[in-house]
């Protein structure tokens, strides 16, 4: 086994989280918004854990990319977005789908490949979509969806609405060409779009800093597209919420696109097959101490929410996730009748007469 840090990334110096910003206790965020964010955080966490458990039980087939540890970003943005806004996510999209109100039962059923899944079992874990909720898709070949989000923003601009399109992506996406094409066009056309980089420090299995020319994969590129470099603690829902509210408002006022880099950390590996052993143990430990759930739990206690209230939220979410699990497991396998449907807008797949 190599013992050189160049080949074993777990021997590198750990990259540690910034301390929690205590000033955020005084942020002008109504307590009902904070409680809703706490509930959403719990939902995303418990959903992710349940998806992981069901994978281990061999109920979730294929692959699955969880957001465990990263829920603060989807929570903060989800709370700041309006119902008509558009979300575009990657294969790591479960949290973003739930943050827009996608039913957890229908989402879990999709992971199980069941007929009652939100996509009827045809999309799977990497493509959660619910257009009625503004969840415009999870795109599993990274980069493309930034360009697609531009199109939705362009559409809103042409239709004269105040909708904003938000594209979420990982740090790895910042090195693909579509990222740069999208940022340039968004600025040239002053589109109401927000690009949100969830920088979890690793592009799949490789530390992002080893493959990126600048320290901050998103914020470090912002100036090239005439945008403000914005960096936020992605594990602090209040911090994310405040930034989200500001950039969404900017987009609604017609002032153009923004690029946000939210620093966060995966508590697990890249996908189901990855135990994440390439990370320095001290780094994993430090980020476990900066997990959004206990962080936000403490925040809410500090601003005067009783422990009992938070406990009640946690229990209610647990019941909802249990119910979602039962709903998903009760779903039937999709039948042959759906195999050839919805290739074309006539509902079928016929390509010749």
């Amino acid at each position, binding site marked *: 086994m190599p013992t050189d840090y160049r080949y074993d990334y777990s021997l590198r110096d750990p990259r540690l989280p910034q301390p929690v910003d205590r000033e955020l206790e005084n942020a002008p965020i109504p307590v009902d918004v904070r409680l809703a964010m706490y509930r959403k955080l719990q939902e995303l966490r418990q959903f992710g854990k349940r998806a992981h458990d069901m994978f281990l039980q061999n109920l979730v087939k294929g692959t699955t990319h969880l957001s465990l540890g990263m829920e603060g970003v989807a929570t903060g943005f989800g709370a700041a977005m309006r119902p008509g806004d*558009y979300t575009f996510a990657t294969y790591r999209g479960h949290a973003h789908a739930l943050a827009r109100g996608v039913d957890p039962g229908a989402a879990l059923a999709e992971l199980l490949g069941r007929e009652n899944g939100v*996509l*009827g079992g*045809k*999309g799977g874990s990497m*493509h959660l*979509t*619910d*257009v009625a909720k503004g969840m*415009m*898709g999870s*795109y599993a*070949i990274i*980069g*493309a*969806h*930034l*360009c*697609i*989000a*531009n*199109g*939705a*923003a*362009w*559409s*809103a601009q*042409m*239709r004269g609405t105040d909708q904003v*399109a938000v594209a979420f992506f990982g740090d790895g996406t910042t090195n693909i*060409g*579509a990222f740069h*094409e*999208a940022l*340039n*066009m968004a600025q*040239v*056309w002053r589109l109401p779009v927000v690009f949100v980089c969830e920088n979890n420090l690793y592009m799949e299995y490789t530390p992002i800093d080893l493959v990126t020319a600048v320290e901050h994969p998103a914020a470090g590129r912002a100036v090239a597209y005439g945008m403000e470099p914005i960096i936020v603690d992605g594990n602090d829902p209040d911090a994310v919420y405040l930034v989200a509210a500001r950039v969404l408002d900017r987009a609604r006022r017609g002032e153009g696109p923004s690029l946000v880099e939210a620093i966060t950390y995966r508590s697990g590996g890249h996908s189901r097959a990855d135990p994440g052993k390439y990370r320095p143990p001290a780094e994993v430990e430090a980020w476990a101490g900066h997990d959004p759930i206990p962080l936000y739990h403490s925040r809410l206690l500090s601003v005067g929410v009783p422990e009992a209230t938070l406990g009640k939220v946690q229990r209610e979410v647990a019941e909802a996730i249990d119910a979602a699990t039962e709903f998903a497991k009760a779903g039937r396998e999709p039948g042959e009748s*759906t195999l050839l*449907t*919805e*290739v*074309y*807008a006539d*509902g079928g*797949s*016929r*390509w*010749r*007469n």
Partner: protein
Amino acid sequence: MAELSYREAVAHGIAQEMRRDPTLVMLGEDVAAAGGVFKTTVGLLDEFGPLRVRDTPISEQAIIGAAMGAAMTGIPVIAEIMFSDFLAVCWDMIANEIAKSRYMTNGQVSFPMVIRTANGGGARFGAQHSQSVENWAMMIPGLKVVAPSTPVDVVGLLAAAIRDPDPVVFFEHKSLMAAKGPVPDGDVVDTLGTARVIREGTDVTIAALALMVPRAFEAATRLEEAGIAAEVIDVRSLVPLDTQTILESVSKTGRLFTVEENPRVCGWGAEVVSIVDEEVFWDLDGPSIRITTPHIPLPAAAALEDMAIPAVNRIYETVLKSVDGPGGVG
């Protein structure tokens, strides 16, 4: 009735549809102020303004992504990719995002959009600006694929493509741009998935697409002098594919020739031949024969390019030789 060139027909067709639907927009490199590098969008900026006819950066992924995002949120779009070879730069958008998303989402999204692109050889541009790539698009489930050969078909099929709720890749042939033909006054709207018999015959069927159509027609005229009555079909649309028109013709004539500009391997004619083989094999009097560009990148030199792309004489000689031999029309 006006006499329009193929290139004028493109702008004519787009204008017809932009007048009909005030939400229809178009975007692409040099399409607005410059009127397109092939001058196929001249006058559209003046009539419809910069919000509906937009110049873009050289960013094919951003162009097609913007078209996709707009289409899926209710704005019909025409996107231009300057040369069809450049589709490879944004093929993820077309083959993975646009073509698959309707199926993956179980029908939650639709893409009322047309991707127009200048296709094919004959302009001595060399390998990266000349290929016929209609077979690339044909093999992707979820796309529709159209390639007109005349000005009136440009207008009518473009209108049909724009009005279609599915994504359509619309191939305009570079070497047909100057070709002229009559276009009726008023709105012209055709139907996707309809081939057209442009010359009737009883001895052989020649199925051709785009630039190959006038060449097949001319070859058929010469074959007539040699005593062979060739039926010529302008396939017009690869998806949906009007196999009935082709099958009926082959059942009548007993012989099929395809004339394809795409490189041979996995060209559209291979699919047509396999369908004929499966469905009307017992009506055949001899093997189906594909006349194609060889499996090579296109060369730039005029002499070489002319050898590569099926020419009138190659079509004529191939048919003549095939029907003179065993299994011929006798």
